[in-house]
């Protein structure tokens, strides 16, 4: 794998349809100046994990209604919201209540982007993911993902077979580049040290 891993991660790949979907969506977020972070299994898929996903989870900064309506209009040029056709409902009934909204390409159901505001009940982990996000440039397309150390720890803490497999994959792929102290610190906080040790030995 030819990859530049520093302050940002830069690499080239043959783009899958899922990559193209994510790039099209994040291009609109980038253009709109919205701060966001991709936190889902897509992070592992982006770097080569051989599985697909029906949804891609994104946390976006909390917006006021006017800013959200502008984003909504920009997104509707290529995508549709699967929850509601009304921007104000999407904002007030879903996002402000801590629920997510999903966008897919027009006329399609999957894949979809699952968007939510940071959840304050997650002990600040959503905000941390957003504030410490990592820039990725793939084939000259910019997107922001959760820092890999947090992504690994969080996937272990979610605990399904699929999540543990994603975590192990990312760990194995980037273990020479990771801040291991930081990974251990996240692991302690999320109480997954044993699982991390067992799965990565």
């Amino acid at each position, binding site marked *: *794998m*030819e*990859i530049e891993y520093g302050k940002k991660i830069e*690499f*080239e*790949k*043959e*783009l*899958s*349809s*899922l990559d193209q979907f994510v790039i099209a969506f994040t291009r609109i977020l980038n253009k709109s100046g919205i701060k966001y972070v991709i936190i889902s299994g897509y992070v592992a*898929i982006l*770097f*080569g994990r*051989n*599985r*697909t996903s029906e949804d891609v989870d994104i946390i976006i900064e909390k917006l006021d209604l006017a800013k959200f309506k502008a984003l909504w209009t920009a997104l509707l040029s290529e995508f549709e919201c699967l929850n509601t056709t009304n921007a104000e409902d999407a904002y007030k009934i879903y996002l402000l209540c801590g629920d997510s909204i999903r966008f897919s390409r027009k006329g399609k159901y999957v894949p979809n982007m699952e968007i939510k505001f940071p959840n304050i009940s997650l002990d600040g982990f959503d905000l941390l993911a957003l504030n410490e996000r990592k820039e990725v440039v793939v084939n000259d397309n910019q997107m922001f993902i959760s820092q890999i150390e947090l992504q690994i720890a969080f996937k272990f803490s979610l605990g399904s*077979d699929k999540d*543990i*497999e994603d975590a*192990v*994959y990312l760990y*194995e*792929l980037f273990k020479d580049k990771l801040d291991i102290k930081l990974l251990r610190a996240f692991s302690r906080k999320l109480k997954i040290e044993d699982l991390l040790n067992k*799965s990565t030995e």
Partner: protein
Amino acid sequence: MKISDIPDVDLKKFEEFKKRNFKARLEFIKQYADWIKKTPNKIWSAQQKEIIG
């Protein structure tokens, strides 16, 4: 097939089987990550595209 033809399952053994299977999957994922690290992007991403589409 009759319902009575369905064999009894030893759930303890089945749990062990699942554990072994998962361990084997993790081993494969480690091997695969190792292969990706040594393989040009053009090759691994073309293979990934075949799976994902």
